[in-house]
C-alpha cells in the first residue's frame, strides 16, 4: 500500500507541500514576464497534476531495491523513469496551455509555453528524483518500524514462554518430598496426612492458576507463598521458622506473577535445608513514598558449596522485575552476618 494514500494526515501534508511548489511554478512564470493570471492558470493545474504524478515513484521504489542493484543500473533505471515522467508532465503542461489559449485573457499562453518547456521538464526531473529519494527513506523507515514491532512481539512471546516454563517448573524435589511426608503421616497421624494433602492441593491449584496471568496483586503471591511454607513447615518441623512482616498497603501492589515464590523456594533450598538446625526465614513487604520494597532473607551456610541453580533463579526474578518496571526497579542480593538476602523495590501500582 502507498504510505501517503493510507494515512489522512500524510495525504494532507503531501498536498500542502504542493501549494508552495505551485507557487514556485507561478513565481518562475511571472519572472519570465507572464501575467499573474497566466501564471496561476497554468501553475494550479500543473501542481494538481504533479501531486498525482509524483505519487508514482513509490511503486518503482518498491520494485527497485537499492541494496541489490549496481549504481549503473540504478542510474539508468531512475534516469529513464525521470526523463519519461518529466516529459509526460511538461507535455501535459503544453497541452493544458494549448487548451487555455482558447480563452481571450489567456490567448498568448500557447506561445509562451514553448520556451518554458525545458525549464519545466528539468524541474520535473528534479522533482521526480527527489520524490524517489523521499520514498526510499519512507520505505526504510517503515521497515525499521516493522522490525521494531516484531522485536517487541518476540520479546513478549519470550516472556510469556518464560512464565509458562516457570509454572511448569514446579519443583519436583518439593513435590516428591511432600508426597513422602504424606506417606509417612498416613499411619502415625492420619489427620495431619489429610491436612497436608489439602495444603498440597491448595498450593498446586494456586500456582497453576497464577501462571495464567502476567501480573497479580502481591496479596495473591503471598497466599501462594503461605501455602508453600505451610507444607515445608510440616516437612522441616522445628527447623523452619517463618517471620512475616507485611504492610497492609503493600498487599495490593501489582507484581509480575511468580516473583516471590522462586525467592522463597531458594531460601529453603539454599538456606534452611542445608543447615542442620535450620533457622528463621524472614519475609518483609513495605511501602514508602510510592515504592514497594520486598525482602526475603534466610540463614545461610557460607561454607557449603553452592548448589547449582541459585544464580539462575535470582537472575530470572531480576529479569522479570525489570521486564515489568524497566528502569524503575532495584534488585539486590548478598550475604551479611551469616544470612542471605534478596531485596526488590519497584513503584507501587495497584489494580484499578
Amino acid at each position, binding site marked *: 500500500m502507498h504510505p501517503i494514500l493510507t494515512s489522512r494526515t500524510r495525504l494532507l501534508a503531501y498536498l500542502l507541500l504542493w501549494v508552495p511548489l505551485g507557487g514556485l511554478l507561478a513565481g518562475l512564470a511571472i519572472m519570465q514576464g507572464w501575467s499573474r493570471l497566466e501564471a496561476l492558470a497554468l501553475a494550479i493545474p500543473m501542481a494538481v497534476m504533479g501531486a498525482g504524478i509524483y505519487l508514482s515513484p513509490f511503486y518503482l521504489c518498491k520494485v527497485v531495491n537499492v541494496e541489490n542493484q549496481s549504481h549503473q543500473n540504478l542510474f539508468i533505471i531512475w534516469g529513464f523513469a525521470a526523463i519519461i515522467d518529466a516529459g509526460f508532465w511538461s507535455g501535459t503542461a503544453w497541452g493544458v496551455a494549448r487548451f487555455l489559449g482558447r480563452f481571450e485573457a489567456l490567448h498568448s499562453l500557447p506561445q509562451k509555453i514553448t520556451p518554458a518547456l525545458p525549464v519545466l521538464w528539468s524541474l520535473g526531473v528534479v522533482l521526480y528524483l527527489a520524490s524517489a529519494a523521499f520514498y526510499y527513506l519512507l520505505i526504510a523507515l517503515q521497515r525499521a518500524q516493522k522490525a521494531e514491532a516484531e522485536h517487541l512481539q518476540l520479546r513478549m512471546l519470550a516472556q510469556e514462554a518464560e512464565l509458562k516454563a516457570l509454572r511448569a517448573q514446579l519443583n519436583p524435589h518439593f513435590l516428591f*518430598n511432600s508426597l513422602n511426608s504424606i506417606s509417612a503421616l498416613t499411619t502415625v497421624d492420619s489427620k495431619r496426612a489429610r491436612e497436608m494433602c489439602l495444603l498440597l492441593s491448595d498450593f498446586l491449584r494456586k500456582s497453576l492458576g497464577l501462571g495464567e496471568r502476567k501480573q497479580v496483586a502481591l496479596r495473591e503471591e503471598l497466599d501462594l507463598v503461605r501455602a508453600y511454607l505451610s507444607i515445608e513447615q510440616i516437612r522441616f518441623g522445628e527447623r523452619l521458622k517463618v517471620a512475616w512482616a507485611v504492610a497492609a498497603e503493600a498487599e495490593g501492589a501489582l507484581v509480575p506473577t511468580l516473583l516471590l515464590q522462586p525467592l522463597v523456594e531458594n531460601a529453603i533450598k539454599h538456606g534452611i535445608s542445608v543447615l542442620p538446625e535450620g533457622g528463621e526465614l524472614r519475609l518483609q513487604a513495605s511501602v514508602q513514598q510510592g515504592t514497594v520494597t520486598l525482602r526475603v532473607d534466610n540463614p545461610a551456610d557460607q561454607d557449603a558449596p553452592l548448589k547449582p541453580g541459585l544464580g539462575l533463579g535470582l537472575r530470572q526474578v531480576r529479569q522479570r522485575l525489570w521486564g515489568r518496571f524497566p528502569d524503575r526497579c532495584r534488585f539486590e542480593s548478598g550475604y551479611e552476618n551469616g544470612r542471605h538476602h534478596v531485596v526488590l523495590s519497584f513503584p507501587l501500582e495497584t489494580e484499578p
Partner: protein
Amino acid sequence: MTKNTFTALIVDDEELARGLVREHLQGHPEIAIQAECANGFEAVKAATEQKPDLLFLDIQMPKLDGFEVLELLDPQPATVFITAFDQFAIKAFEAHAVDYLLKPFSEARFEEALTKAKAKCLAGELSVPRPAELSAAARDTWPLERIVVRDGTKVTFINLDKLNYIQAQDDYVELKTEGRSYLKQQTLSSLENQLDPKRFLRIHRSFILPLDRLTRLEQGLTDSWTAILRDGTKLPVSKSGYAKLKELIG
C-alpha cells in the same frame, strides 16, 4: 554360619522420612535399629562407632550429602539410598549401591530393597566400588571444591587452598596441609580426576602438586628434577610430570 540379626542405621534430615523407614522396619524383628541421624556428621559418627550392617541413607542433606557420608565409611554397610528426585545420582549408583528408593516408595518396594541389602550383607565382603569415585560421578559439581575426610568419628573439610601436596599411600591418599596431614581411602588417580587440572598437577606417580605452592625446579645429577615448594619441601618430578609442568608454566 548364617547371620540372622542385622543392625541398621537410618539417615535422613526429615523426621517424617525417618519415621517412615522406621515404620517399615518394625515388621522385621531380625533388624535392630541402632540409631537415627538427621545429618551427615551424625551419620558418619554413628556408623563409625557402631558399624551397622545396613544403612538407609538420604542423599540431599545439610553439610554432608549421602555420597560424602558413604565415601567416609570403612567398612561399608550394605547401603540403600533414598532420594526424592535425582537423575544424576540414580544414573551413577544404579550399578553400584545395593538399591535405591525413590520417595515416596511403596512397602513392597521397600521390602525388595531390604531383601537385597540383607543378601548383600550375608554374602560377606561388599564389593562396592571405591565410593569416592562413585560420589565424584554422581555429583554435578566439578571440579572438587573441598575434600571431605574423616578423622576418627569426626568429619573435616579440607579447603583446597590449604593443601601443600597430596601423596599416594597404597590404597590411601595422604593430604598434607600446613598444620597436619590427613589420610583418606581413595586412589591418587581418582582424586586427580576430581581436581581442577589448572590448579593441581600430577607431577609424579605418587604426588599431586597445587601449582601455587611451587617456587622453583632443581635439576638433579642425571635427567631428574625436583620441585621445591614454598615451605621448602622437596618433591620428585617424573619425566612426564616435568613435561606437563613445562607446558603449563612454560
